[in-house]
């Protein structure tokens, strides 16, 4: 179950196995500004990969992502599938997260074995256990 970490914001998304990075980020409640065709044709969603490895199960045109870009750590996020945990660099203005309450529902979806109550909330909202999904469940 790969985790995508976004620096410098520290956002984390828990992806499903085989899930492309961009689709996973959106499903987990993160809105990325630079999104194009979502189908590997335009290269708008390329992001710098600073740690970890990605693979491509679908053919990517050389004109969209060159071999050099791949080796230098550029990740075509709509097609890239993480091999284990990865870290991406994306300026804070280029990525936003859903409101904390909603985010908790979204980002745990990939962890059916983990109950929301035992899942720590996002780092930015330490008070989340008393206001969000977990608290509601206890009532």
């Amino acid at each position, binding site marked *: 179950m790969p985790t995508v970490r976004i620096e410098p914001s520290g956002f984390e998304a828990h992806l499903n196995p085989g899930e492309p990075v961009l689709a996973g980020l959106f499903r987990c409640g993160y809105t990325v500004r630079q999104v*194009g065709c979502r*189908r*590997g*044709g335009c290269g*708008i969603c390329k992001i710098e990969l600073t740690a970890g490895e990605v693979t491509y199960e*679908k053919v990517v045109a050389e004109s969209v992502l060159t071999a050099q870009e791949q080796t230098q750590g550029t990740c075509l996020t709509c097609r890239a599938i993480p091999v284990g945990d990865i870290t991406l660099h994306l300026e804070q203005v280029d990525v936003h997260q859903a409101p904390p309450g909603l985010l908790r529902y979204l980002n745990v979806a990939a962890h059916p074995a983990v109950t929301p109550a035992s899942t720590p909330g996002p780092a930015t909202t330490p008070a989340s256990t008393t206001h969000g999904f977990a608290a509601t469940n206890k009532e």
Partner: protein
Amino acid sequence: MGIMRMGYAHVRVTDLAEAKHHYASTMGLYETLDEGNRVYYKGWDEWDHHSVVLEEGGVGLVKFGFKVDKPEDIDEIEQKAATFGLTVERMSAGENPEVSDGIRFTTPSEHVFEVYHSQTVIGTEVGTHNPESFPRHLVGVGVPGLDHALILAEDVGTMQQMLTDVFGFYATERVQTTLDDDAHLIATWMTSNNQIHQLAVLEGPQGRLHHFAFKLGDWSDVGRAADLMSMDDVPIDIGPTRHGITRGQTVYFFDPSGNRNEVFAGGYLAYPDRPVSVWTPEAIGKGVFYHARELNERFMTVST
């Protein structure tokens, strides 16, 4: 009468199997020939052999084919192209399967255009004798046919001049910096007949395809097409909405390789004597997306 219509769009796709699923099952085109790495399609209301060609390998445009009325029209266009300064080559019948001889040239915008006078006629399911209104068992959106395309060019003015001088097109609408005579031309919508546009040209990088479009009947067809895109997980760029420019109703979406497609309905009748509608930058958002009234970044930056 010169150019009748855009007859075919030939595009590259990264994965032919996925592309076939999109164009056949979602769009509802009829496959007419499978050559292995190239597949040919037509819409239900098209009688010529094909209007869409998919070729495996890469993304973006290979070429467009424009159909003329008579073989003599080819000679005339060849001469006009030479006069304009284009390098024209002859193509023989069969270079494109089921397509006649004709000419081929690269435009100042670095797109390849072919001009031909006939294709093998294979007709439609409804036929021509006491025809029904549409085939009963259409698949998916069930598009009747190819409508138009938008290409990018560094110099829109030169392309407009070429389409005027060589193809006999006229502009129906334009986007320009001001209303002044010496204004800079940003985009132009052009046609040879009553169709509101056959080819539009927008300022941008050379040789790029912005989209090619299929025609639909009306608003409800456009809405239904968008519903089917959700069912088939087709990424929608924008829509359903209306264009201020052309007044057409639209959904923009992406094929499985990221080439942008459109379904387009409506649009008013064009006439060469109708005064050209001119849009200036302060209203460009409304011109392109009549309801949102703002351009989205994707619409301006994504091309293949």
